[in-house]
């Protein structure tokens, strides 16, 4: 009987360890997936990008939404990304897969500038 109880306790312990490991692994996978699917939004309103500067994790997808009543563009000076002319409520998305600092501007109104910092 004593032996039986000891075996039960050992099995329960092993099950607990396995379950804990699975839970930790699962949460890591979920966090990784979350980071992979992270998203941020930048609005274009009254001839400016808001927020003007954004810091995000690698893998984040940024979406620009134009709320102005004139078209704007989102253009990287080093040609890493470039939207077509975005009319009112049009969107443009880009996923940042590499760390670094990305400046951008509106090619129709070059006074409009912004910066994405990817860490």
């Amino acid at each position: 009987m004593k032996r039986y109880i000891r075996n039960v306790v050992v099995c329960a312990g092993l099950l607990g360890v396995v379950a804990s490991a699975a839970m930790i692994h699962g949460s890591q996978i979920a966090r990784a997936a979350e980071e992979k699917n992270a998203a941020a939004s930048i609005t274009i309103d009254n001839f400016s990008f808001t927020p003007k500067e954004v810091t995000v994790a690698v893998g984040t997808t940024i979406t620009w939404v134009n709320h102005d009543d004139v078209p704007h563009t989102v253009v990287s000076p080093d040609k890493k990304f470039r939207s077509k002319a975005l009319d009112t409520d049009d969107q443009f998305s880009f996923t940042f897969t590499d760390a670094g600092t990305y400046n951008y501007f509106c090619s129709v109104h070059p006074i409009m500038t912004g910066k994405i910092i990817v860490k």
Partner: protein
Amino acid sequence: MIEGAAKGFLGTSAGFGADLNLTIQLIMGVALIGGTFLARAKRYAAHGVCMTTVLVLNLAPIAVVMLPSFGQLVLPRLASHLHKRYYAVAAVHGVLGSAAELLGLYVLMVAGTNMLPEAWRFKRWKPWMRLEFALWMAVLLSGIGTYIVWYTPLWRR
């Protein structure tokens, strides 16, 4: 191109190309007004040189700045967005500008060359030239309007 990274110099949100184009158009407008005074002073040779220079030089900003900009930013959505101020003012400017440039080239061909057959040549100069001048001034005003709508957010609110 009207698009680009270079900022303008007129203090609006326009780029360098748009500001340079507006400045050139205003100088050309002043030159045309000066040209009409030359005609009134009966200095017809100088009048012809002045008007022809403006007409021909204007082909460059049309080809380099205005047509590409119109093609990229206006034309793709013109049919469905004509009710919007941004597209409407550019469309009006485009139609008036095309008419003014083509009429100007026609007047130039009649007045300065023998390329056109007799049947296509007008005899009364003043109405045609006055029409061309009035059209050009309308184009200039609509161009200024286009610049304001496209590049000056403070004036829109």
